[in-house]
């Protein structure tokens, strides 16, 4: 399509009324055409006027909490790059303990390569930790889930791979069990095809079991509401 033809599609593009292939052609052209960018700016203002002209209805207050909760950085979950999945084991134990121990504040930029390298370096220094132990979780669903922990440092982490998505609006919740009352140790959702590490701080010697159940998201439950799908002996 020519510049003129694409420019003529901008009003419909601003109204989201183009077929997907036309919209893609317009977007490709917009990337390099300053004139069309300026044209779209004015048309989007018109569209925004149409959008804000409708009668105002206040959404439920609970929606605000849900929106903000959904955006809150999952500070305690580390998503590893795929290639680390092969070497999850001793290295993972050390990374986890290093990160948890250092109390690294993890935001969504942690995935940056530099920080990963720094974490790897710190890991190497701690690799020798002789007191680290592993508990393998097993149960009713396929998945590769281990708790690696250092009872002396009271630091550990759950290493999760190949666990399928729990379903829309559901999360996995981790429980540490000493007596009758399981204690929540955090919630997570798996990331398809990528291993996850959930750092945990606890006096592991107090507990006899670690378990995972499926709970309503995004906050999980104060006590398990479903039968654990995976558990392991500490």
């Amino acid at each position, binding site marked *: 399509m020519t510049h003129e033809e694409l420019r003529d599609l901008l009003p419909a593009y601003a109204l989201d009324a183009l077929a997907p292939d036309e919209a893609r052609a317009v977007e490709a052209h917009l990337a390099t055409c300053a004139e069309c960018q300026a044209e779209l700016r004015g048309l989007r203002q018109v569209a925004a006027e149409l959008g804000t002209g409708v009668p*105002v209805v206040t*959404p439920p207050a609970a929606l605000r909490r849900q929106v903000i909760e959904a955006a809150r950085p999952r500070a305690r979950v580390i998503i590893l790059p795929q290639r680390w999945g092969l070497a999850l084991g001793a290295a993972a134990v050390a990374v986890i303990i290093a990160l948890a121990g250092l109390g690294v504040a993890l935001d969504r930029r942690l995935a940056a390569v530099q920080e990963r390298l720094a974490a790897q370096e710190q890991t190497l220094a701690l690799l020798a930790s002789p007191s680290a132990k592993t508990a393998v979780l097993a149960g009713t669903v396929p998945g590769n889930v281990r708790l690696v922990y250092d009872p002396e440092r009271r630091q550990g982490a759950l290493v999760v791979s190949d666990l399928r998505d729990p379903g829309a609006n559901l999360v996995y919740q981790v429980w540490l069990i000493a007596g009758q009352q399981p204690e929540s140790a955090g919630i997570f959702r798996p990331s398809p095809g990528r291993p996850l590490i959930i750092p945990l701080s606890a006096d592991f010697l107090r507990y006899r079991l670690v378990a995972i159940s499926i709970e309503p998201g995004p906050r999980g439950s104060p006590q398990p509401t479903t039968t654990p799908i995976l558990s392991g002996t500490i």
Partner: protein
Amino acid sequence: MAEPREQEALEAGILARVGRADMTAFEGLYDRYGRSVFSLALTMLRDAEAAQEVVQEVFLDVWRTARAFDPGRGSARSWILALAHHKAVDAVRRQRLRTTEPLDEGMANHQDVAELAVAGIARGRVRAALEALPAEQREAIALAYYGGLTQREIAERMRIPLGTAKTRMRDGMLRLRGILGAHYEETER
């Protein structure tokens, strides 16, 4: 109340902070736009639950992509409303796929939505601008924007050739811009 130009700079600043993962700025952004996004989605979907889902999708997307926002390409307000409209149109099209009613009834429903939306326009300036359009241009724009129909669907609905539907929509939008444009000129200075 800040002047429009200051308002625009302020909102671009909030969006820039959201781009740097500033949670307080994100909450502020929701407080500014949550209601507008919800109201638009509710007008288009006529289903409060579906409208809430749209709000969630929109703000999660804003949170993830605010870094890519370029104030040179338009105001924060236009950007968020465009995103909201895009998500709401997706939801309208999903809603349509799920309903098993005959096509004609489905289409009639979209026309109702569009007509009700135009009738419900509360802001005087937008209302006056829409009323100044020839009826066929107003209908084409309402079916697209509020009804979530594509150009092709509008042509079928209005029983006119595709080229005519495109022309009506384009002429109507350029005319609206002309009418509403005087206001933008003021805010640009």
